[in-house]
Protein backbone atom coordinates (compact mmCIF):
# COMPACT_ATOMS: atom_id res chain seq x y z
CA UNK A 1 0.00 0.00 0.00
CA UNK A 2 1.35 3.45 -0.77
CA UNK A 3 0.69 6.32 1.63
CA UNK A 4 -2.28 7.60 -0.33
CA UNK A 5 -4.12 4.30 -0.16
CA UNK A 6 -3.19 4.01 3.45
CA UNK A 7 -4.78 7.38 4.23
CA UNK A 8 -7.86 6.42 2.22
CA UNK A 9 -8.10 3.23 4.23
CA UNK A 10 -7.89 5.06 7.54
CA UNK A 11 -10.37 7.71 6.41
CA UNK A 12 -13.08 5.07 6.27
CA UNK A 13 -12.96 4.77 10.06
CA UNK A 14 -15.35 7.08 11.88
CA UNK A 15 -12.87 7.91 14.68
CA UNK A 16 -10.35 9.17 12.13
CA UNK A 17 -13.04 11.32 10.55
CA UNK A 18 -13.98 12.70 13.98
CA UNK A 19 -10.39 13.52 14.77
CA UNK A 20 -9.96 15.29 11.46
CA UNK A 21 -13.18 17.33 11.81
CA UNK A 22 -12.29 18.33 15.36
CA UNK A 23 -8.70 19.11 14.38
CA UNK A 24 -9.70 21.38 11.49
CA UNK A 25 -12.31 23.28 13.52
CA UNK A 26 -10.13 23.73 16.60
CA UNK A 27 -7.14 24.87 14.61
CA UNK A 28 -9.31 27.30 12.67
CA UNK A 29 -10.75 28.85 15.84
CA UNK A 30 -7.47 28.96 17.69
CA UNK A 31 -5.69 30.67 14.80
CA UNK A 32 -8.42 33.31 14.42
CA UNK A 33 -8.23 34.23 18.09
CA UNK A 34 -4.47 33.74 18.14
CA UNK A 35 -3.87 36.80 15.97
CA UNK A 36 -5.67 39.01 18.48
CA UNK A 37 -4.05 37.39 21.50
CA UNK A 38 -0.53 37.69 20.09
CA UNK A 39 -1.04 41.32 19.07
CA UNK A 40 -2.63 42.26 22.38
CA UNK A 41 0.34 40.61 24.16
CA UNK A 42 -2.05 38.12 25.71
CA UNK A 43 -0.36 34.91 24.48
CA UNK A 44 0.48 33.95 28.05
CA UNK A 45 -3.21 33.98 28.96
CA UNK A 46 -3.71 31.07 26.58
CA UNK A 47 -0.88 29.24 28.28
CA UNK A 48 -2.20 29.94 31.77
CA UNK A 49 -5.71 28.87 30.85
CA UNK A 50 -4.57 25.54 29.49
CA UNK A 51 -2.99 24.73 32.84
CA UNK A 52 -6.14 25.73 34.64
CA UNK A 53 -8.10 23.43 32.35
CA UNK A 54 -5.71 20.62 33.30
CA UNK A 55 -6.33 21.27 37.01
CA UNK A 56 -10.08 21.32 36.48
CA UNK A 57 -9.90 18.08 34.52
CA UNK A 58 -8.00 16.43 37.38
CA UNK A 59 -10.69 17.51 39.80
CA UNK A 60 -13.26 16.08 37.39
CA UNK A 61 -11.41 12.76 37.33
CA UNK A 62 -11.27 12.58 41.11
CA UNK A 63 -14.96 13.39 41.44
CA UNK A 64 -15.61 10.71 38.79
CA UNK A 65 -17.70 13.08 36.70
CA UNK A 66 -19.22 11.46 33.66
CA UNK A 67 -18.60 14.51 31.51
CA UNK A 68 -15.49 16.54 32.39
CA UNK A 69 -16.53 19.42 30.17
CA UNK A 70 -19.34 20.31 32.57
CA UNK A 71 -16.68 21.28 35.09
CA UNK A 72 -13.71 22.19 32.91
CA UNK A 73 -15.50 24.56 30.57
CA UNK A 74 -17.12 26.85 33.17
CA UNK A 75 -13.99 26.89 35.36
CA UNK A 76 -11.75 27.89 32.47
CA UNK A 77 -14.17 30.57 31.28
CA UNK A 78 -14.37 32.07 34.78
CA UNK A 79 -10.57 32.09 35.19
CA UNK A 80 -10.22 33.67 31.72
CA UNK A 81 -12.49 36.52 32.76
CA UNK A 82 -10.66 36.99 36.06
CA UNK A 83 -7.23 36.94 34.37
CA UNK A 84 -8.29 39.51 31.82
CA UNK A 85 -9.55 41.81 34.54
CA UNK A 86 -6.34 41.42 36.57
CA UNK A 87 -4.26 42.03 33.44
CA UNK A 88 -5.58 45.57 33.24
CA UNK A 89 -5.14 46.16 36.97
CA UNK A 90 -1.84 47.82 37.79
CA UNK A 91 -1.78 46.67 41.40
CA UNK A 92 -1.56 42.95 40.76
CA UNK A 93 0.96 42.26 38.03
CA UNK A 94 -0.98 40.42 35.36
CA UNK A 95 1.82 38.13 34.21
CA UNK A 96 2.79 37.16 37.75
CA UNK A 97 -0.83 36.39 38.60
CA UNK A 98 -1.10 34.15 35.56
CA UNK A 99 2.16 32.34 36.32
CA UNK A 100 0.92 31.75 39.85
CA UNK A 101 -2.48 30.42 38.81
CA UNK A 102 -1.05 28.21 36.09
CA UNK A 103 1.61 26.45 38.18
CA UNK A 104 -0.80 26.03 41.09
CA UNK A 105 -3.36 24.41 38.80
CA UNK A 106 -0.72 22.07 37.39
CA UNK A 107 0.54 21.08 40.84
CA UNK A 108 -2.88 20.62 42.40
CA UNK A 109 -4.10 18.73 39.35
CA UNK A 110 -1.19 16.29 39.46
CA UNK A 111 -1.45 15.96 43.22
CA UNK A 112 -5.14 15.10 43.07
CA UNK A 113 -4.68 12.62 40.27
CA UNK A 114 -1.96 10.85 42.26
CA UNK A 115 -3.58 10.81 45.68
CA UNK A 116 -7.05 9.83 44.49
CA UNK A 117 -5.91 7.70 41.62
CA UNK A 118 -8.76 5.78 40.06
CA UNK A 119 -6.87 3.98 37.36
CA UNK A 120 -3.86 1.74 37.35
CA UNK A 121 -1.93 4.02 35.04
CA UNK A 122 -1.81 7.48 36.64
CA UNK A 123 1.21 8.73 34.76
CA UNK A 124 -0.40 7.60 31.52
CA UNK A 125 -3.54 9.59 32.33
CA UNK A 126 -1.54 12.68 33.27
CA UNK A 127 0.56 12.36 30.17
CA UNK A 128 -2.41 12.17 27.83
CA UNK A 129 -4.08 15.15 29.52
CA UNK A 130 -0.92 17.20 29.15
CA UNK A 131 0.19 16.14 25.70
CA UNK A 132 -3.03 14.94 24.13
CA UNK A 133 -4.11 11.46 23.27
CA UNK A 134 -1.32 9.17 22.12
CA UNK A 135 -3.65 7.93 19.43
CA UNK A 136 -6.66 9.62 17.93
CA UNK A 137 -8.95 6.77 18.87
CA UNK A 138 -10.19 8.58 21.93
CA UNK A 139 -12.37 11.31 20.46
CA UNK A 140 -15.97 10.20 20.83
CA UNK A 141 -18.96 11.11 18.71
CA UNK A 142 -20.37 13.36 21.45
CA UNK A 143 -17.09 15.17 21.89
CA UNK A 144 -16.99 15.77 18.16
CA UNK A 145 -20.46 17.31 18.12
CA UNK A 146 -19.64 19.50 21.11
CA UNK A 147 -16.54 20.72 19.27
CA UNK A 148 -18.49 21.35 16.07
CA UNK A 149 -21.21 23.39 17.76
CA UNK A 150 -18.88 25.46 19.95
CA UNK A 151 -16.34 26.07 17.17
CA UNK A 152 -19.05 27.30 14.84
CA UNK A 153 -20.31 29.65 17.55
CA UNK A 154 -16.79 31.00 18.07
CA UNK A 155 -16.34 31.51 14.32
CA UNK A 156 -19.68 33.28 13.93
CA UNK A 157 -18.84 35.56 16.85
CA UNK A 158 -15.45 36.32 15.30
CA UNK A 159 -16.92 37.27 11.92
CA UNK A 160 -19.78 39.33 13.38
CA UNK A 161 -17.49 41.22 15.76
CA UNK A 162 -14.49 41.32 13.43
CA UNK A 163 -14.38 45.12 13.09
CA UNK A 164 -14.82 45.58 16.82
CA UNK A 165 -12.14 43.04 17.63
CA UNK A 166 -9.76 44.84 15.28
CA UNK A 167 -10.41 48.21 16.91
CA UNK A 168 -10.04 46.86 20.44
CA UNK A 169 -6.84 45.06 19.47
CA UNK A 170 -5.21 47.98 17.71
CA UNK A 171 -6.13 50.76 20.11
CA UNK A 172 -8.32 50.04 23.10
CA UNK A 173 -8.17 53.57 24.48
CA UNK A 174 -9.27 55.15 21.23
CA UNK A 175 -12.17 52.73 21.01
CA UNK A 176 -13.22 53.49 24.59
CA UNK A 177 -12.84 57.24 24.10
CA UNK A 178 -15.18 57.21 21.13
CA UNK A 179 -17.78 55.29 23.11
CA UNK A 180 -17.14 51.69 22.08
CA UNK A 181 -17.72 49.25 24.93
CA UNK A 182 -14.23 47.77 24.79
CA UNK A 183 -14.63 45.71 27.98
CA UNK A 184 -17.47 43.82 26.37
CA UNK A 185 -15.30 42.73 23.44
CA UNK A 186 -12.37 41.86 25.70
CA UNK A 187 -14.77 39.64 27.61
CA UNK A 188 -15.92 38.04 24.37
CA UNK A 189 -12.31 37.32 23.40
CA UNK A 190 -11.60 35.82 26.83
CA UNK A 191 -14.64 33.54 26.78
CA UNK A 192 -13.93 32.43 23.21
CA UNK A 193 -10.30 31.59 23.96
CA UNK A 194 -11.31 29.62 27.05
CA UNK A 195 -13.75 27.59 24.95
CA UNK A 196 -11.15 26.92 22.26
CA UNK A 197 -8.57 25.84 24.83
CA UNK A 198 -10.91 23.37 26.50
CA UNK A 199 -11.91 21.91 23.14
CA UNK A 200 -8.32 21.76 21.96
CA UNK A 201 -7.25 19.82 25.04
CA UNK A 202 -8.93 16.69 23.68
CA UNK A 203 -6.86 16.96 20.57
CA UNK A 204 -3.40 18.19 21.46
CA UNK A 205 -3.48 18.26 25.26
CA UNK A 206 -3.23 21.17 27.63
CA UNK A 207 0.49 21.85 27.32
CA UNK A 208 0.43 22.03 23.54
CA UNK A 209 -2.78 23.98 22.94
CA UNK A 210 -1.09 27.36 23.30
CA UNK A 211 1.11 26.36 20.35
CA UNK A 212 -2.01 26.20 18.17
CA UNK A 213 -2.88 29.71 19.32
CA UNK A 214 0.53 31.31 18.85
CA UNK A 215 2.33 29.61 15.94
CA UNK A 216 -0.06 30.27 13.04
CA UNK A 217 -0.43 33.94 13.97
CA UNK A 218 3.31 34.47 14.29
CA UNK A 219 3.94 32.59 11.05
CA UNK A 220 1.38 34.67 9.15
CA UNK A 221 2.82 37.94 10.47
CA UNK A 222 6.09 37.13 8.74
CA UNK A 223 4.37 36.99 5.38
CA UNK A 224 1.64 39.61 5.46
CA UNK A 225 1.30 43.02 7.02
CA UNK A 226 -2.33 43.90 7.05
CA UNK A 227 -4.78 42.59 9.61
CA UNK A 228 -7.35 40.80 7.45
CA UNK A 229 -4.57 39.10 5.49
CA UNK A 230 -2.86 37.95 8.66
CA UNK A 231 -6.12 36.49 10.00
CA UNK A 232 -6.88 34.60 6.77
CA UNK A 233 -3.30 33.43 6.29
CA UNK A 234 -3.02 32.26 9.87
CA UNK A 235 -6.25 30.28 9.53
CA UNK A 236 -5.01 28.63 6.33
CA UNK A 237 -1.63 27.75 7.84
CA UNK A 238 -3.26 26.36 10.95
CA UNK A 239 -5.76 24.15 9.09
CA UNK A 240 -3.12 22.81 6.69
CA UNK A 241 -0.76 22.00 9.58
CA UNK A 242 -3.45 20.24 11.54
CA UNK A 243 -4.49 18.06 8.56
CA UNK A 244 -0.88 17.30 7.69
CA UNK A 245 -0.04 16.59 11.33
CA UNK A 246 -2.98 14.21 11.71
CA UNK A 247 -2.01 12.26 8.58
CA UNK A 248 1.63 12.02 9.60
CA UNK A 249 0.53 10.83 13.00
CA UNK A 250 -1.61 8.11 11.40
CA UNK A 251 1.06 6.98 8.95
CA UNK A 252 3.96 6.87 11.41
CA UNK A 253 1.84 6.23 14.54
CA UNK A 254 3.27 9.25 16.36
CA UNK A 255 1.31 11.08 19.11
CA UNK A 256 -1.18 13.29 17.32
CA UNK A 257 -0.89 16.46 19.44
CA UNK A 258 2.87 16.61 19.38
CA UNK A 259 2.91 15.91 15.63
CA UNK A 260 0.50 18.75 14.86
CA UNK A 261 2.50 21.17 17.01
CA UNK A 262 5.75 20.06 15.35
CA UNK A 263 4.14 20.68 11.95
CA UNK A 264 3.16 24.17 13.13
CA UNK A 265 6.73 24.79 14.23
CA UNK A 266 8.04 23.78 10.81
CA UNK A 267 5.48 26.07 9.15
CA UNK A 268 6.57 28.92 11.41
CA UNK A 269 10.25 28.38 10.59
CA UNK A 270 9.52 28.32 6.84
CA UNK A 271 7.50 31.55 7.12
CA UNK A 272 10.19 33.19 9.25
CA UNK A 273 12.83 32.41 6.62
CA UNK A 274 10.57 33.74 3.83
CA UNK A 275 10.02 36.85 5.97
CA UNK A 276 13.74 37.45 6.39
CA UNK A 277 14.39 36.93 2.68
CA UNK A 278 11.57 39.36 1.82
CA UNK A 279 13.03 42.02 4.07
CA UNK A 280 16.53 41.60 2.65
CA UNK A 281 15.44 42.06 -0.92
Amino acid at each position, binding site marked *: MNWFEQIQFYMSFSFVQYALVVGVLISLCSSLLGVTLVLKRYSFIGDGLSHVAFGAMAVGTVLKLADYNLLVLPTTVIVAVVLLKSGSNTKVKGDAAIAMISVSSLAIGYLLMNVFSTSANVSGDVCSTLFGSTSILTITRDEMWLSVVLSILVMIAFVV*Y*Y*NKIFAVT*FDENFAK*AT*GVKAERYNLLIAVAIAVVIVLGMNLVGSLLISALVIFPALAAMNLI*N*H*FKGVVVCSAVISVICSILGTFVSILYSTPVGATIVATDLVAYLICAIIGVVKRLR
Partner: protein
Amino acid sequence: MSYIKATDLTLGYEGKAVIENLNFEVNAGDYLCIVGENGAGKSTTMKTLLNLVKPISGELTYGDGIKPYEVGYLPQQTVVQRDFPASVYEIVISGNLAKIGMRPFYSKKERDNTKLNMKRMNVWEFRNKSYKNLSGGQQQRVLLARALCATSKLLLLDEPVTGLDPKVTIEFYQLIKALNEEGITIIMITHDIHAAVEYADKILHLGQNNVFFGTKEEYKLSDAYKEFEV
Protein backbone atom coordinates in the same frame (compact mmCIF):
# COMPACT_ATOMS: atom_id res chain seq x y z
CA MET B 1 -23.11 77.42 26.53
CA SER B 2 -19.72 75.80 26.12
CA TYR B 3 -18.70 72.41 24.70
CA ILE B 4 -17.07 71.28 27.91
CA LYS B 5 -17.19 73.00 31.27
CA ALA B 6 -15.18 71.78 34.22
CA THR B 7 -16.34 73.01 37.63
CA ASP B 8 -14.24 72.37 40.76
CA LEU B 9 -12.87 69.14 39.36
CA THR B 10 -10.71 66.92 41.50
CA LEU B 11 -8.98 64.32 39.36
CA GLY B 12 -6.92 61.27 40.13
CA TYR B 13 -6.82 57.51 40.36
CA GLU B 14 -8.41 55.30 42.98
CA GLY B 15 -9.33 58.19 45.24
CA LYS B 16 -5.84 59.73 45.19
CA ALA B 17 -6.09 63.28 43.92
CA VAL B 18 -3.60 64.48 41.34
CA ILE B 19 -5.23 67.85 40.71
CA GLU B 20 -7.74 69.70 42.83
CA ASN B 21 -10.20 72.49 42.11
CA LEU B 22 -9.74 72.61 38.41
CA ASN B 23 -11.92 75.05 36.48
CA PHE B 24 -11.89 75.61 32.76
CA GLU B 25 -14.15 75.66 29.78
CA VAL B 26 -13.82 74.83 26.12
CA ASN B 27 -16.01 76.57 23.55
CA ALA B 28 -16.72 75.61 19.98
CA GLY B 29 -13.78 76.62 17.78
CA ASP B 30 -11.27 76.93 20.64
CA TYR B 31 -7.67 75.82 20.44
CA LEU B 32 -6.64 74.86 23.96
CA CYS B 33 -3.19 73.68 24.94
CA ILE B 34 -2.63 71.86 28.21
CA VAL B 35 0.92 72.42 29.42
CA GLY B 36 2.78 71.60 32.62
CA GLU B 37 5.50 69.49 34.17
CA ASN B 38 5.50 65.71 34.15
CA GLY B 39 3.29 64.35 36.89
CA ALA B 40 1.23 67.51 37.11
CA GLY B 41 -1.82 65.70 35.81
CA LYS B 42 -1.91 66.50 32.09
CA SER B 43 -2.64 62.94 31.07
CA THR B 44 -5.14 62.46 33.89
CA THR B 45 -7.00 65.54 32.70
CA MET B 46 -7.03 64.17 29.15
CA LYS B 47 -8.24 60.76 30.29
CA THR B 48 -11.02 62.38 32.26
CA LEU B 49 -12.10 64.41 29.24
CA LEU B 50 -12.17 61.15 27.28
CA ASN B 51 -14.28 59.45 29.96
CA LEU B 52 -11.57 56.87 30.57
CA VAL B 53 -11.22 58.02 34.17
CA LYS B 54 -14.03 59.29 36.38
CA PRO B 55 -13.49 62.55 38.26
CA ILE B 56 -13.22 62.13 42.05
CA SER B 57 -15.40 65.16 42.63
CA GLY B 58 -16.65 68.17 40.77
CA GLU B 59 -18.57 68.34 37.57
CA LEU B 60 -17.80 67.95 33.91
CA THR B 61 -20.67 69.14 31.75
CA TYR B 62 -21.07 68.84 28.01
CA GLY B 63 -23.19 71.23 26.04
CA ASP B 64 -23.69 73.09 22.78
CA GLY B 65 -24.70 69.93 20.94
CA ILE B 66 -21.69 67.83 21.93
CA LYS B 67 -22.18 64.57 23.77
CA PRO B 68 -19.67 62.65 25.87
CA TYR B 69 -17.73 60.31 23.57
CA GLU B 70 -18.29 62.60 20.60
CA VAL B 71 -14.57 63.18 20.36
CA GLY B 72 -11.70 62.27 18.12
CA TYR B 73 -8.59 61.19 19.97
CA LEU B 74 -4.97 61.07 18.93
CA PRO B 75 -3.28 58.95 21.58
CA GLN B 76 0.39 58.52 22.26
CA GLN B 77 1.69 55.56 20.35
CA THR B 78 1.78 52.31 22.28
CA VAL B 79 4.22 49.41 22.04
CA VAL B 80 1.48 47.26 20.55
CA GLN B 81 1.01 49.60 17.61
CA ARG B 82 4.64 49.92 16.60
CA ASP B 83 4.77 46.54 14.85
CA PHE B 84 1.06 45.99 14.33
CA PRO B 85 0.19 44.38 10.99
CA ALA B 86 -2.59 46.64 9.73
CA SER B 87 -3.10 48.56 6.53
CA VAL B 88 -3.61 52.31 6.69
CA TYR B 89 -7.18 51.90 5.44
CA GLU B 90 -8.06 49.34 8.12
CA ILE B 91 -6.87 51.74 10.81
CA VAL B 92 -8.63 54.83 9.51
CA ILE B 93 -11.98 53.09 8.96
CA SER B 94 -11.91 51.83 12.55
CA GLY B 95 -12.48 55.45 13.59
CA ASN B 96 -16.09 55.01 12.45
CA LEU B 97 -16.70 52.11 14.80
CA ALA B 98 -18.83 53.93 17.36
CA LYS B 99 -21.19 55.02 14.57
CA ILE B 100 -22.08 51.53 13.41
CA GLY B 101 -23.42 50.51 16.82
CA MET B 102 -24.58 46.91 16.77
CA ARG B 103 -24.18 46.52 13.01
CA PRO B 104 -21.33 44.16 12.24
CA PHE B 105 -19.94 45.81 9.11
CA TYR B 106 -19.25 49.28 7.72
CA SER B 107 -21.68 50.66 5.14
CA LYS B 108 -21.04 52.94 2.19
CA LYS B 109 -21.56 56.00 4.39
CA GLU B 110 -18.64 55.05 6.65
CA ARG B 111 -16.46 54.07 3.70
CA ASP B 112 -17.11 57.45 2.06
CA ASN B 113 -16.32 59.24 5.31
CA THR B 114 -13.08 57.28 5.56
CA LYS B 115 -12.03 58.16 2.02
CA LEU B 116 -12.86 61.83 2.56
CA ASN B 117 -10.78 62.12 5.71
CA MET B 118 -7.89 60.16 4.24
CA LYS B 119 -7.74 62.53 1.28
CA ARG B 120 -8.01 65.46 3.67
CA MET B 121 -4.96 64.23 5.59
CA ASN B 122 -3.11 63.25 2.43
CA VAL B 123 -2.84 59.57 3.29
CA TRP B 124 -5.23 58.13 0.66
CA GLU B 125 -2.31 57.13 -1.55
CA PHE B 126 -0.91 55.00 1.30
CA ARG B 127 -4.22 53.21 1.94
CA ASN B 128 -2.92 49.72 1.15
CA LYS B 129 0.44 50.21 2.81
CA SER B 130 1.25 48.78 6.17
CA TYR B 131 1.06 51.24 9.04
CA LYS B 132 4.29 50.04 10.61
CA ASN B 133 6.30 50.87 7.47
CA LEU B 134 5.29 54.55 7.46
CA SER B 135 7.38 57.41 8.83
CA GLY B 136 6.46 59.01 12.15
CA GLY B 137 4.82 62.00 10.50
CA GLN B 138 2.80 59.82 8.15
CA GLN B 139 1.66 57.64 11.05
CA GLN B 140 0.40 60.70 12.91
CA ARG B 141 -1.55 61.84 9.84
CA VAL B 142 -3.13 58.38 9.61
CA LEU B 143 -4.20 58.53 13.26
CA LEU B 144 -5.48 62.05 12.68
CA ALA B 145 -7.60 60.82 9.77
CA ARG B 146 -8.97 58.10 12.06
CA ALA B 147 -9.79 60.68 14.73
CA LEU B 148 -11.58 62.83 12.14
CA CYS B 149 -13.70 59.82 11.18
CA ALA B 150 -14.97 59.70 14.75
CA THR B 151 -15.94 63.36 14.93
CA SER B 152 -15.99 66.62 13.08
CA LYS B 153 -16.28 68.70 16.22
CA LEU B 154 -13.63 68.06 18.85
CA LEU B 155 -10.12 66.61 18.67
CA LEU B 156 -8.00 65.66 21.66
CA LEU B 157 -4.30 65.23 21.00
CA ASP B 158 -1.87 63.74 23.50
CA GLU B 159 1.71 64.93 22.90
CA PRO B 160 1.31 64.46 19.15
CA VAL B 161 4.77 65.62 18.08
CA THR B 162 6.83 63.31 20.31
CA GLY B 163 9.50 61.68 18.18
CA LEU B 164 8.88 63.79 15.07
CA ASP B 165 11.74 65.72 13.50
CA PRO B 166 11.61 69.55 13.59
CA LYS B 167 10.43 70.00 10.02
CA VAL B 168 7.63 67.44 10.34
CA THR B 169 6.71 68.93 13.72
CA ILE B 170 6.10 72.35 12.19
CA GLU B 171 4.08 70.82 9.36
CA PHE B 172 2.02 68.93 11.90
CA TYR B 173 1.30 72.07 13.95
CA GLN B 174 0.23 73.87 10.78
CA LEU B 175 -2.07 71.00 9.89
CA ILE B 176 -3.74 71.20 13.31
CA LYS B 177 -4.05 74.97 13.02
CA ALA B 178 -5.69 74.55 9.61
CA LEU B 179 -8.19 72.07 11.07
CA ASN B 180 -8.91 74.53 13.86
CA GLU B 181 -9.56 77.28 11.32
CA GLU B 182 -12.01 74.95 9.57
CA GLY B 183 -13.98 75.01 12.82
CA ILE B 184 -12.74 71.93 14.67
CA THR B 185 -12.15 72.47 18.37
CA ILE B 186 -8.69 71.36 19.48
CA ILE B 187 -7.46 70.28 22.89
CA MET B 188 -3.78 69.39 22.88
CA ILE B 189 -1.37 68.25 25.56
CA THR B 190 2.15 69.39 24.83
CA HIS B 191 5.59 69.82 26.36
CA ASP B 192 6.37 72.42 23.75
CA ILE B 193 5.51 75.68 25.49
CA HIS B 194 6.65 77.79 22.55
CA ALA B 195 4.36 76.02 20.13
CA ALA B 196 1.56 76.32 22.68
CA VAL B 197 1.77 80.09 22.90
CA GLU B 198 2.26 80.38 19.16
CA TYR B 199 -0.68 78.30 17.92
CA ALA B 200 -3.22 77.98 20.74
CA ASP B 201 -5.64 80.66 21.79
CA LYS B 202 -6.21 79.34 25.31
CA ILE B 203 -3.79 77.75 27.76
CA LEU B 204 -4.40 75.46 30.69
CA HIS B 205 -1.21 75.33 32.76
CA LEU B 206 -1.00 72.57 35.34
CA GLY B 207 1.86 73.08 37.78
CA GLN B 208 2.74 72.00 41.30
CA ASN B 209 2.13 75.51 42.65
CA ASN B 210 0.37 77.27 39.85
CA VAL B 211 -2.73 76.33 37.96
CA PHE B 212 -3.60 78.78 35.25
CA PHE B 213 -6.42 78.94 32.75
CA GLY B 214 -6.98 81.78 30.31
CA THR B 215 -6.12 83.19 26.93
CA LYS B 216 -2.54 83.02 25.76
CA GLU B 217 -2.19 86.82 26.07
CA GLU B 218 -3.11 86.58 29.75
CA TYR B 219 -0.89 83.56 30.11
CA LYS B 220 2.21 85.36 28.88
CA LEU B 221 1.81 87.82 31.75
CA SER B 222 1.11 85.16 34.39
CA ASP B 223 3.35 83.73 37.10
CA ALA B 224 2.86 80.26 35.68
CA TYR B 225 4.46 81.27 32.39
CA LYS B 226 7.40 82.90 34.17
CA GLU B 227 7.94 79.63 36.04
CA PHE B 228 8.56 77.99 32.70
CA GLU B 229 10.69 80.78 31.29
CA VAL B 230 13.32 80.52 34.01
